[in-house]
């Protein structure tokens, strides 16, 4: 392993290397190049693409991408009820056994007022200008997807599966219609329906759920989004059928229900 990238919008420290805990916990070599990706829900794909670039320059290496997030807002904020928590990890090499990355493209625009935190704040908020915020999501995701499709000379309908950043259950549907994707392409990766908004982990947990069920030669389009605002679109082709020993669906089904009082205590909102 020669590269490790860790992504989260909710790191335990404002300043301190985060990936060092992961590297030490896994017993990876100390001479590994690490990077922490944070401040945007796009951080997950940002970490993935940093590793893709590393492997382009170091074809013999292996790279570990991990994303873990648990976005937090005030219990009084309308943003809060949809928030979830999740994590995913991928190992990349130039001879991939699960899927290969066929191309990627990005889109960045200046935007604000949607999902942000000041330097001293630990709770998310937005200014509640909904249409204005949605416009940012729609133009960034469609921008990245459009560039990638023309790069690869493909149509939206050519992909068997598509995964979009899922800040809620509604926006991916609107964006996919704009891009030219249809709902049946989204089904396998729509993890927000049972896991909520996973922040930086949203797109990559969705991608993991797709790879759990995808068949050999299936094509997958994954599009992240982070407020501020930017999107990465990644095209993959599945290399072989597999029977995953751990699946997103099975992990999500292993659950305990909490009542709201227990939840408020766990969030340290009640003492």
């Amino acid at each position, binding site marked *: 392993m020669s590269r490790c990238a860790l992504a989260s919008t909710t790191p*335990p*420290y404002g300043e301190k290397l985060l990936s060092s*805990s992961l590297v*030490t*916990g896994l*017993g990876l070599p100390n001479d590994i190049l690490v990077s922490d990706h944070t401040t945007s829900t796009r951080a997950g794909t940002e970490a993935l693409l940093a590793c893709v670039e590393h492997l382009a320059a170091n074809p013999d290496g292996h790279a570990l991408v991990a994303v873990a997030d648990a976005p937090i807002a005030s219990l009084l904020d309308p943003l809060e009820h949809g928030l979830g928590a999740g994590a995913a990890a991928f190992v990349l090499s130039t001879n991939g056994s699960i899927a290969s990355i066929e191309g990627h493209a990005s889109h960045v625009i200046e935007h604000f007022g949607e999902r942000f935190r000041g330097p001293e704040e630990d709770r998310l908020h937005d200014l509640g200008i909904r249409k204005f915020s949605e416009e940012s999501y729609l133009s960034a995701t469609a921008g990245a997807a459009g560039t990638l499709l023309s790069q690869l000379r493909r149509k939206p309908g050519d992909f068997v599966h598509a995964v979009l950043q899922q800040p809620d259950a509604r926006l991916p549907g609107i964006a996919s219609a704009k891009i030219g994707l249809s709902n049946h392409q989204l089904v396998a990766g729509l993890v927000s329906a049972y896991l909520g908004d996973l922040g930086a982990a949203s797109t990559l947990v969705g991608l993991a759920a797709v790879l759990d069920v995808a068949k050999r030669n299936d094509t997958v389009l994954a599009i992240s989004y982070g407020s501020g605002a930017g999107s990465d679109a990644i095209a993959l082709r599945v290399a072989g059928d597999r029977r995953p020993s751990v699946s997103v669906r099975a992990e999500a089904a292993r659950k305990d229900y909490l009542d709201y009082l*227990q939840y408020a*205590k*766990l969030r*340290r909102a009640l*003492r």
Partner: protein
Amino acid sequence: MAHVSVPMYWRSVPQRYRLIANKCRTCGYVMFPPKAVCPSCGERAAFDEIGLSGRGTVYSFATIAAGSAPPEFADQERASGPYPIAVVELVEGPRITGQLTDVDSKDVRIGMSVRAELRRIYEEEGVVRYGFKFILAEG
């Protein structure tokens, strides 16, 4: 347990993150945490570093209830209620203490198969202390 200073905690990071133990070359005894002298045969120098599997069985257990948690675990107890702790006999031999997690206290039994996972344990002096907790092993 009381205050563990940051330098003291830092020195034990290999044990806490990856269960690094010492194995005596003379008699094969496994020491966790690593010791300077083998308690079994008195060997003082010939040790190998090994990583423990984290797998084992519950040797004994107790429930830490309201008010009885050590100060560093008081916040956890307030937030999520009473929690079980156990002495776990690892497959390599050592018996070690840790929290059992993702399990209800009343479902814990002596002899249950468990395995260690790296978890956030508590926070002191603004430093997150990671270490192992035990979860039920599948099968």
